[in-house]
């Protein structure tokens, strides 16, 4: 008797979902920046360029 193994179907990635989400994300990101204020965003970018242990983060 043969054993048939089936896997669940792979998800379908739709480019239009990603394009729609980009627009939503940009709007939300700008609104969030307004909410936290310019001084906080200055710190955000300064912190963001600081060094990180990437090997640790990638694990």
């Amino acid at each position, binding site marked *: 008797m043969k054993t048939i193994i089936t896997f669940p179907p792979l998800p379908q990635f739709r480019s239009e979902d990603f394009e729609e989400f980009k627009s939503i994300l940009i709007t939300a990101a700008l609104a969030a*920046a307004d909410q936290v204020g310019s001084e906080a965003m200055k710190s955000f970018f300064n912190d*963001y360029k600081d060094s990180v242990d*990437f090997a640790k983060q990638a694990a």
Partner: protein
Amino acid sequence: MTLTPFEFRPFCDLRLQETKDAWTADAHAGLAFPSETERLLDWVTAHREPSANDSVAFGVFLVGTNVALGISEIVIQRKTVRSKWVKMLRLHLRSNIDAELQDGNQENAMNVFLAAIEGSLDLQLTHMATTLKIYGRTSQQLNYLKSLVSKLNNVPKLKFAAKIDGRFLSLVYKAEPLEHP
């Protein structure tokens, strides 16, 4: 959708050389620390090709130019047989954009940041990665990312699940399963 004339690209030989020349000149003009700039550019040189679970360099460029305005570190990581993640770990701004930011003008910095996020979403789609993660190292970054999550979660019928997962903003694509033939 692109709000700004930016593109998110890997570093070909020409982009690498022009970026090196410009960023090194900035550093020698006193706009950045030469040793840090040299270390960063050496890292870019050594990380132009994706490799398993290691980071890869992408640049944010004005369309039609070859000098990066931002350098981003990306990891494309397979978590399981059926699951991949794209992680955006950090973003370095070119010194002139950083200087504008310090003067209180954050528009270009935000544009570069948003272009990096858009580019990361493109990578997510290209690699069919279920999850995009954006790292927040400090409390300031996490506060911003939390604010972003709360904005996203106010959007009805979003095709992505947004949440803070440890120190990452996690954006998980809610893909439809393919029909069996």
